[in-house]
């Protein structure tokens, strides 16, 4: 029985775990965007805060994922369920690329454009929504894309704490020393990463300012 037979036989479970994986990645990316984009905007506008915030996000990035899952385990409510923990950890990892790209995008808006806008009486929120965000949207999306691709890979490790996802196959395969089972987790995960990379990349191009 080769890999394809294995996939065909277990397609039900492959689908289930893929959806679980998507759930972990999707929700954590959403949370990371909800925190990271406003934070990136805030530090772009207040240059004094940029170093500490970016340094903080950088430090999180350097914590090994298994260790981070372990650190978070004692947290109340979150520690009760493995998927909550996994989503929190993935959110933390996704913050850096999103914050950094938002910051870079907003800071990169031409100063003359901003001065003209301000000089003509645009309010801060008009400047943000009419000028700064439209001009940096593709930069921000590129950060989200990086975050998603990293998360798809990291989420496989979440199976180690029982959060499910395609990592289940990988860990099971490792234990059974069965490459087919490992591949049944790894191949769909790789496809997910490619798909996310491609589709967000496409969106990025479409929203590119001229």
């Amino acid at each position, binding site marked *: 029985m080769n890999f394809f037979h294995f996939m065909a036989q277990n397609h039900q479970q492959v689908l289930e775990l893929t959806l679980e994986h998507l759930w972990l990645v999707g929700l954590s990316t959403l949370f990371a965007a909800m925190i990271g984009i406003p934070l990136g905007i805030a530090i772009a506008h207040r240059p004094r805060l940029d170093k500490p915030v970016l340094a903080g996000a950088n430090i999180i990035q350097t914590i090994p994922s298994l260790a981070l899952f372990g650190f978070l385990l004692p947290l109340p409510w979150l520690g009760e369920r493995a998927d909550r923990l996994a989503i929190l950890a993935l959110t933390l990892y996704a913050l850096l690329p999103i914050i950094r790209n938002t910051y870079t995008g907003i800071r990169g808006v*031409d100063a*003359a*454009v*901003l*001065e*003209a*806008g*301000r*000089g*003509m*009486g*645009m*309010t801060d929120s*008009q400047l943000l929504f*009419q*000028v700064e965000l*439209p*001009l940096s949207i593709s930069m921000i999306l590129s950060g989200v894309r990086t975050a998603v691709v990293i998360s798809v890979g990291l989420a496989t490790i979440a199976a180690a704490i029982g959060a499910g996802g395609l990592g289940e196959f990988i860990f099971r395969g490792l234990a059974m020393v069965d490459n087919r089972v490992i591949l049944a987790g790894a191949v769909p995960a790789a496809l997910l990463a490619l798909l996310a990379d491609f589709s967000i990349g496409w969106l990025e191009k479409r929203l590119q*300012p*001229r």
Partner: protein
Amino acid sequence: MPDHPIIEFRDVSYAVAGTLVLSGLKFEVQPGETLVLLGRSGSGKTTTLKLINRLLSPTSGEVRIKGVPNTQLDLVALRRSIGYVIQEVGLFPHYTVERNIALVPWIMKWPEDRIRLRVKELMQLTGLIPELASRYPHQLSGGQRQRVGVARALAADPEILLMDEPFGALDPLTRNELQQEFLSLQRKLRKTIVLVTHDLREALRLGSRIALMETGRLVAALAPQEFLHSADPAASAYVRAFGDGLGTTLDRSAS
């Protein structure tokens, strides 16, 4: 007392981190005149301009608009009532020419058909052919971009126009053309204009009065003719630096 000067600087000083950039600035701008702020780089011309629409606030003294200190006016309303043109133009790269020009009327929530009419009128006034309306700034030449910048500044029909080296980045031929059009536009519209330049020729040609600035001080404010023959050392140094043929600049603009 209805006859306030439209812009008045009362002993204005401006300091950045303890360093005085402008000191004791005192001058008035009358309705309909073109005051040119002339001076070398770092003399405080641009800073002076930005104090008018409060992109900067004075460290001491006050700037009055039609007799009212501009700190007492609503900041956003103040800026919308003053046109602003800068050297880098600062057009929004993601907006078409049409939307760029319509910016101020749009944020002031004019009805749409009125905006459309106004844009058409302004494009004609600034010599932009209608086909350009749907183009983006990167598809325009430098001269066209500067025209759009002027059209955008005029959109809400402001009484005051601030121009910071508006023709500085253009090639000499285009600059000449735009200066010529500036003069005919000004004859039509009679705006109150404060224009910053370091080019004496431009100052003589466009200004009804020239205010010479040096190291944050106003050295002299003279009519172009007087400026040419001024005994003031700073003014005559400027005239010497630009050399011969300045008189012809003056004759041409007078005709």
